């Protein structure tokens, strides 16, 4: 593959910079890929730490969890039970409750958050907005707050008797609202908390994309007499498409795995009104010690995520003017770890 393949270079790796280049006076080549011009082993050496860590701390645990999903703890003995856990899942009303709740939050929260994100990004991108750097920051900082701090803070804010949210609403004659203790309002609380947490992050991604839309497009549209809405509809939105696909897919995955918010705010209640699939998995594994079943839920969830993501890619691709590569840039999603 390579003219340079001297034996000395075959051992070269990230630490081998001192190895003398024996073929220095090589004629310059202009190839598109830089893969010409390096030893075969180089990429593997760069990937070595990732591969080792991946095998040990990702692949093995996931395979082990899959095996676990085929077992059950019967009287203290781990027993192979085949697909029993998966069959049990199909007949488990609570699993469907969790799926339904997750779907509902998905359908309400993701569009709301993404729409707000677009509005914010357009505002951040507008010269009319004063103090843009500060505002960008203000909307982004919620993401720095970790699970525990977030839980402590929001439980205190949304407490239905002593919380400041009801206190403030009281001044304008609203409430008190039973935020975390009513099946309906608990869902709303989760939606509010998630929107608070992640909207700024999405706005920043849109902003980045917006800045790549050529200004001439807008100027031309203005000359043609297009109004603000028309420009938004015909230039901004299509221009945002790659970022939209990215955020839709990642937010969907994040929401389908939703765990943090119900975990810290409602514990899945009241009466399972905010039980998500992620919560149900956790409860079975870590409250009831039923790891086989919990793993089965995890793999069922993975299949659901894969199917939903594929559908989203398909939809976006069909409506796009030209096919969009699947290899999309990703977003800051600490959630998806």
């Amino acid at each position, binding site marked *: 593959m390579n003219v340079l393949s001297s034996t000395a270079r075959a051992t070269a790796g990230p630490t081998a910079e001192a190895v003398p280049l024996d073929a220095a006076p090589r004629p310059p080549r202009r190839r598109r890929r830089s893969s010409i011009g390096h030893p075969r082993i180089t990429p593997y050496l760069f990937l070595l730490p990732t591969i080792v860590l991946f095998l040990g701390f990702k692949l093995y645990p996931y395979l082990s969890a899959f095996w*676990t999903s085929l077992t059950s*703890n019967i*009287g*203290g*003995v*781990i027993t192979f039970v085949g697909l029993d856990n998966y069959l*049990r899942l199909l*007949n*488990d*009303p*609570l699993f469907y409750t969790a799926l339904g709740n997750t779907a509902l939050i998905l359908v309400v929260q993701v569009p709301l958050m993404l729409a707000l994100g677009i509005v914010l990004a357009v505002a951040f991108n507008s010269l009319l907005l004063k103090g843009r750097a500060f505002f960008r920051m203000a909307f982004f900082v919620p993401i720095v707050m970790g*699970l*525990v701090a977030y*839980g*402590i803070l929001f*439980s205190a804010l949304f*407490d*239905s*008797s002593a919380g400041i949210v009801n206190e403030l609403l009281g001044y304008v004659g609203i409430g008190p609202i*039973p935020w*975390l*203790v*009513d*099946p309906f309002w*608990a869902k709303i609380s989760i939606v509010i908390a998630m929107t608070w947490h992640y909207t700024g992050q999405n706005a920043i991604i849109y902003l980045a994309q917006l800045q790549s839309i050529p200004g001439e497009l807008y100027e031309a549209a203005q000359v043609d007499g297009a109004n603000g809405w028309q420009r938004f509809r015909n230039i901004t939105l299509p221009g945002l498409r790659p970022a939209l696909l990215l955020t839709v897919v990642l937010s969907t995955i994040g929401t389908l795995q939703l765990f943090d918010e119900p*975990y*810290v705010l*409602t*514990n899945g*209640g*009241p*009466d*399972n009104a905010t039980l998500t699939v992620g919560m149900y998995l*956790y*409860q079975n*594994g*870590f*409250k*009831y*010690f*039923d*790891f086989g079943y919990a793993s089965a839920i995890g793999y069922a969830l993975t299949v659901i995520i894969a199917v939903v993501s594929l559908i989203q890619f398909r939809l976006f691709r069909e409506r796009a003017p030209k096919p969009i590569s699947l290899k999309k840039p990703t977003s800051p999603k600490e959630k998806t770890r």
Partner: protein
Amino acid sequence: MRFTLNKRSRGVAVTATAIAAVAALVGCSAPSADNNATDGEVSGKITIWTWNAPGDGLEAAIPAFQKLYPDVEVDVQDVGNPAIWEKITTGMAAGGQGLPDVMNIGIDYMGNYVEQFPGQLVDLRDFGAESLESEFPSGAWKSGSGADGAVYGIPYEVNATGFFYRSDIFEQAGIDIDSIETWDQLIDAGVTIKEKTGVPLYNQDKAATEADSAGLWQLQTALQDSFYFDESGDITMNGEAGVHSLELIKKANDLGIVGDIQGSWDNLLAQLRGEKPTAIMPAGGWMAGVMENEAPEMAGNWGVRLPPSVEPGGITAAVNGGTYLSIPTASKNQKTAWEFVNFALGTLEGQKLVYEGGGMFPGYKPMLESEGFAAPSEYFNGQSPNAIFIAELAQDTPALNYTSDYARALKAYTDAQTRVLLSGADPQQALDEAADQVAQQTGRKLAD
């Protein structure tokens, strides 16, 4: 183990019971430590895992113990509750790795540990613990023992239910607390109290935002000699007793005499202090000490008596929880550990020191009968909480079978209770659904 007691953060609570668990799975593949320390010398160092107040109690027994065994060092570690469950479970999961020599275990975890991690707790009969059986209330003893009679824990704290009430509020409403014999009468009285004083009969976490919002139901059901499961582990939560309890809870709620307060330690204290008033407060025996310490300004306003029965002339005692001292098989110093446990809980000298140090209500009969133990308390208007608890223990309540599926049953019940209280569901139907769910999840049978 605890009654109306809740934790502030549900996140933490969930995790605690929980993570602990990482375990069951892992544990089974791990070899259990060999059990050859039985004949060891009484010497060296032992470590005890417990939490604040029970820790203080055990700490108080050390100097006297060291007079008997000068070579022994005892390290009492306040691990924190609920963090202790997580640590014990992960330790058991790791085949005993990192466990101490003595562990303070709650009654609600006992069954789970014994079933999920067979062989990880020492059968204390190896040390002759069976000779102590007659010294403890039989219910409390049985809950710490296996089906085959193996003794996995010695009762440390025994929680008979104290029925605490605000004597000033009852007086203001013109109701003689002593005339109330059943829960139905109590609910009628609650209506009067609400009318005359505006104070709810009791407060409940109606949305069950905390895991253990089931205390009242468990009490009323125990007063009818029933529980989530029967002795053979079949599901009884939707039986006549369970349904009747939930009907009582619904009746009180429908009458508008039940306040809604989210469960948390702070809200509990607010109730004790009268900041969020309640007319009654059924709770474990430990509550008496909490009241004296945390709400000293309410001295004279709280009274205590036996709980009313559900049926006229029925049971008026419920031993609703407690904790045990157990020794893991992984301990390298089991003999010494046992000698300490035996001294602290199996001798009058030890029991007295432990009780004075920590205030945990003991189950050891010679201690209960000892002079001055049931002396009247000024705080409770000259009543004696201890005398009440002794009277309850004397009723010889049956052992509650927590099984390894207590957590599931508890969750299913609290969901059912929430449906009844918030959406007006029918108690029978809600409990049937709950019982079916537990059966579906665990493969347990519904009792006939």
